[in-house]
């Protein structure tokens, strides 16, 4: 007798995460490129503006965050592109759970794969840019709170452009203006820490922005994916 397939929401979430991590672990080079890009861009700044520690320390928060934004644009496409090409995206929309849940799983995996390495090398970036030691913790916190925004908001952009042949440049055009608040709050927090003021205010704002993005983005992503798989 045929009966409906029953999959619990949590199980599907877990399976998606497991599969995506497994897939990513077999194409490692792709994964490392944005990270290397980030380090190279941050290295370029001292070469461009001069190695004076005072200048570097002053522009460090902005440079690190702008570089992080740009490098995240490089890796974003992989969020849905391969799945779109091989049909796994379609199958994801046909899973017996709310699409938003699957989207959250994709966002989580993307965060784990792209943001965690950045969080690990943050001290290196701070060191390269001569960021005063008292601001290191705040820089790390802004990245910790801000990178989920990149993954979640990025997912919206990728969902909208994944079916296009040349979606890459368009993706940055769509996303970067939307991410300006994140850049502003994050650099403000680090600058406050450098100045010895409490960065709690801007950090709370980043947190709020993150919560907003994570709760609302899956709905927009779902709508975008439905347009794209047409």
């Amino acid at each position, binding site marked *: 007798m045929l009966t409906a*397939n029953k999959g619990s929401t949590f199980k599907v979430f877990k*399976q998606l995460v497991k599969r995506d991590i497994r897939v990513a672990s077999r194409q490692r080079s792709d994964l490392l490129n944005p990270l290397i890009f980030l380090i190279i861009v941050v290295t370029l700044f001292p070469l461009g503006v001069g190695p004076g520690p005072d200048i570097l320390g002053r522009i460090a928060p902005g440079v690190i965050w702008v570089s992080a934004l740009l490098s995240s644009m490089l890796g974003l496409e992989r969020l849905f592109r391969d799945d779109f090409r*091989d*049909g796994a995206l*379609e199958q994801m929309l046909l899973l*017996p759970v709310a699409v938003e849940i699957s989207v959250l799983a994709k966002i989580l995996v993307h965060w784990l794969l792209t943001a965690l390495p950045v969080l690990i090398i943050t001290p290196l970036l701070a060191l390269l840019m001569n960021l005063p030691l008292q601001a290191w913790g705040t820089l790390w916190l802004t990245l910790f709170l801000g990178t989920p925004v990149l993954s979640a908001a990025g997912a919206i952009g990728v969902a909208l452009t994944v079916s296009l042949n040349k979606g890459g440049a368009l993706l940055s055009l769509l996303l970067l203006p939307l991410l300006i608040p994140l850049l502003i709050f994050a650099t403000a927090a680090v600058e406050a820490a450098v100045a010895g003021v409490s960065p709690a205010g801007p950090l709370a704002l980043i947190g709020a922005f993150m919560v907003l993005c994570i709760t609302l983005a899956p709905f927009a992503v779902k709508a975008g994916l439905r347009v794209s798989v047409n």
Partner: protein
Amino acid sequence: MAVLLEANELMSIRGERMLFSDLQLSVHAGEIWQIVGPNGAGKSSLLRILAGLLTPQAGSVAFQQNPIAEDRETFYQNLLFIGHKAGVKAELTAIENLEFYAAVQGVELHEPPYEILAKVGLVGLEDIPAQGLSAGQQRRIALARLWLTQAPLWILDEPFTALDVEGIALLHTRFAEHLSAGGAIVLTSHQELITELYQVKALTLRYQH
């Protein structure tokens, strides 16, 4: 027999071209429907509308009398859709691919599905990444899901492409099994389905200029 899937007054427009309008289809349990028509007539679009991947310009699709747009989760618990693109991850092995689909559909696998993979002719290729396999072999991985699923409704886009004679015969047997168990199938195929195992119903779409 009970009506599983019912399409009402479907209309689809792609770009500026009307593919079909006022299309009616009711799929009963135990029935297999073949969508016939030339390239560009809208066969794939129709399947995607039936699966809820595409929104029709007019009309609605209901599964067991419930419009699918209202309760997608129940519908997808009962549906197996294999489209043009098979949904097989190239970095994963055949077994890993199948295990994933089994798990998300709530089918318990107690051991690696060697037997099923043997059935679709993938003996010895079970644990190498799918990117090392040919297109036809990758397609077979996707089709192996037919032996894993408990879903009563199957929607299959060109399941016979890239299959050899043996594979086709095997698929026919599986279809017959599914139909006699009270399942239903909607599929597209360029070839006529020649088999004595079951009666095929056809829905013809014409190319519209």
